[in-house]
């Protein structure tokens, strides 16, 4: 290899990998701050449209539903659970990607995670907020929802710990609190950076949030230890949350629900939709925010794409497992249910689910070049999200149609759930947009840390990239 080739190779590697393309920290800081401050009129237009949508779709509709009762939604006998629970499962699923990326990849020291951990963690927290909205919308008497919390009372009556819903509530509360804390801890140094770089009201805002962080050895040590504990501990919490969500269904004595594979099946499903959402968000962030093309590069889409492919295969595996067990059992109700899934009026959804979740990811993501194309991977991510939403829709209202009392079978038709669902979606986007103006979306110190650890090394004639463990 000639000197020239060598140089080109290195240049190529540098272009490709963020970690090999270091910029001075100050410059990176400025880039991130600039991306936060640069707001076009389009942003505000979208922001206000979404705000109006949230006000109508979420708050007005929900208020109306609280006043009039769930009759204005589409739930009925036997589909007592409808889109609200679909959305709950969906949003919890979305929230799994953040933890997956920042905790599991941190534990496994996957370096490409560095620039987008925060973007993913924000999804966790904001997704869980929407899940919370959805589950409270679902309740018939939401104003009494505090009865579900364990609190001492005069009647000495506590929540029923036999109920999967109580487990669910505990798990989601744990998850929401811990993922929010896990979002906040690595954010502190960046908030301190933002504090140092801002003026005016933002200065005060960051001053309060940065808690007086300076970067002393002690602070870094505590933070590092805490983040380590979080990274390890939040993984089982994350798995437990979606497993428990699946138990909401699997504990019921219903055909199609009572399945022991539901736990892992739901976890992998959650990761599937979550990863899809992450690429989608990254694609949008990269496309719309200033300076993001430096931080988020095709290599990241490539990395996530590989993960998506793996997860998609895993999902296919668990889906088949579930299907095979149900099919083989030959229970007459389950047989009717499977038939209903495929041949019933919502059969299109069943096939769309398989196409979006399996066929399309497998067809696109095996190719490195396609995988590195942000818009393409983002589109696949979007389709996977449709597919996974369909999956939950099939599991909940469509499967609920079929029970052991055929006299009651009835198809579910959504009502006010549609504005409410769109309202939660709009609220999610709105929160994300607001956060993108207020919180450094790129964890600069982590990027710098990574860049410090990476270097070229020559083995014979070959130049390779090495990473040294700093911790």
């Amino acid at each position, binding site marked *: 290899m000639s000197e020239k080739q060598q140089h080109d190779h290195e240049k190529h590697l540098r272009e490709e990998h963020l970690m090999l393309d270091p910029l*001075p*920290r100050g410059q990176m*800081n400025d880039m991130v701050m600039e991306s936060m401050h640069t707001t076009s009129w389009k942003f505000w237009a979208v922001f206000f449209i979404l705000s109006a949508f949230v006000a109508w779709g979420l708050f007005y509709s929900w208020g109306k539903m609280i006043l009039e009762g769930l009759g204005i939604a589409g739930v009925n006998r036997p589909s007592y659970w409808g889109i609200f629970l679909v959305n709950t499962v969906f949003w919890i699923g979305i929230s799994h990607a953040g933890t997956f990326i920042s905790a599991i990849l941190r534990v496994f020291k996957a370096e490409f995670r560095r620039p987008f951990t925060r973007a993913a963690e924000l999804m966790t927290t904001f997704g869980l907020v929407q899940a919370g909205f959805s589950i409270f919308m679902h309740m018939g008497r939401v104003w009494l929802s505090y009865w579900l919390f*364990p609190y001492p009372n005069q*009647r*000495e*009556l*506590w929540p*029923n*710990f*036999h109920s999967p819903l*109580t*487990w669910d509530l*505990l*798990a989601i*509360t*744990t998850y929401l*609190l*811990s993922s929010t*804390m896990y979002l*906040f*801890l690595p954010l502190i*140094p960046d908030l*301190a*950076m933002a*504090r*140092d*770089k801002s003026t005016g009201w933002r200065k005060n805002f960051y*001053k*309060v949030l*940065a*808690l*007086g*962080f*300076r*970067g*002393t*050895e*002690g*602070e*870094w*040590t*505590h*933070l*590092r*230890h*805490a983040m380590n*504990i*979080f990274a390890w*501990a*939040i993984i*089982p*919490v994350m798995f*437990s949350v979606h497993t*428990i969500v699946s138990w909401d269904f699997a504990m019921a004595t219903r055909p199609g629900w009572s399945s022991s594979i539901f736990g892992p099946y739901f976890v992998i499903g959650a990761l599937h939709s979550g990863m899809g959402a992450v690429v989608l968000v990254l694609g949008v962030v990269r496309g719309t925010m200033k300076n993001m093309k430096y931080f988020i590069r095709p290599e990241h889409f490539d990395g996530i794409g590989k993960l998506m492919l793996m997860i998609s295969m895993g999902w296919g595996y668990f889906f088949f497992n579930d299907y095979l067990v149900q099919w083989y059992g030959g229970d007459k109700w389950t047989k009717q249910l499977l038939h209903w899934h495929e041949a019933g009026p919502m059969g299109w959804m069943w096939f769309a689910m398989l196409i979006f979740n399996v066929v399309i990811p497998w067809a696109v993501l095996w190719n490195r070049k396609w995988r590195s194309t942000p818009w393409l991977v983002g589109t696949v991510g979007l389709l996977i999200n449709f597919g996974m939403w369909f999956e939950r829709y099939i599991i909940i209202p469509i499967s609920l149609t079929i029970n052991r009392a055929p006299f009651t079978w009835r198809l579910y038709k959504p009502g006010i759930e549609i504005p409410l669902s769109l309202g939660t979606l709009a609220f999610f986007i709105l929160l994300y947009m607001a956060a993108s103006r207020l919180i450094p979306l790129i964890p600069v*110190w982590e990027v*710098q*840390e990574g860049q410090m650890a990476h270097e070229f090394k020559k083995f014979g004639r070959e130049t390779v990239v090495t990473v040294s463990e*700093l*911790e």
Partner: protein
Amino acid sequence: MTEQKSLLAVFHDLEPAADAVEQLRRLGIHDDHMSVISGVPVTEPMLGRPHQWTNVPRIAMGGAAIGMAVGIALSFWAPNMYAIRVGGQPFAPVPPAIIVIFEMTMLGMLLSTFLGVFLDSFFPNYRPLHYVPEISDGKFAILVECSSMDETKITDMMKKMGAESVQDAEAQHL
């Protein structure tokens, strides 16, 4: 009686800062009287600094224990306050209790970890502190507490070691 002074030396790179720490120690400054402030996490061995003590893991374990106790109480004690029979199950069956105990343990552990950071780092801390904003641009600063007699000596040494600036650190609102 000598006046105590705080000096803040800012370095562009890690290595000169580490050398400066070494030199300071030679000048008779105890490790307790200096600290390194940085924009990226640097470990103690990189700077040749003594091991940093942290309570966070202990606090976390303590929180986990409390959480577990709460979980056990919720699972086995609370249901007996008002015994209600459901679905032919025992009042407080073990399998669901495992779930409750697990979640409460994890919640206790993570909450206390978070609190541990606050306790150990004295967060939130809005009092005036010694600081220069350049640190967040990736620079390394050494904060030295010394007597005013040593001030020039140390300043010169730092300058020699490549400090970009050495200044009288004045505590300020960040």
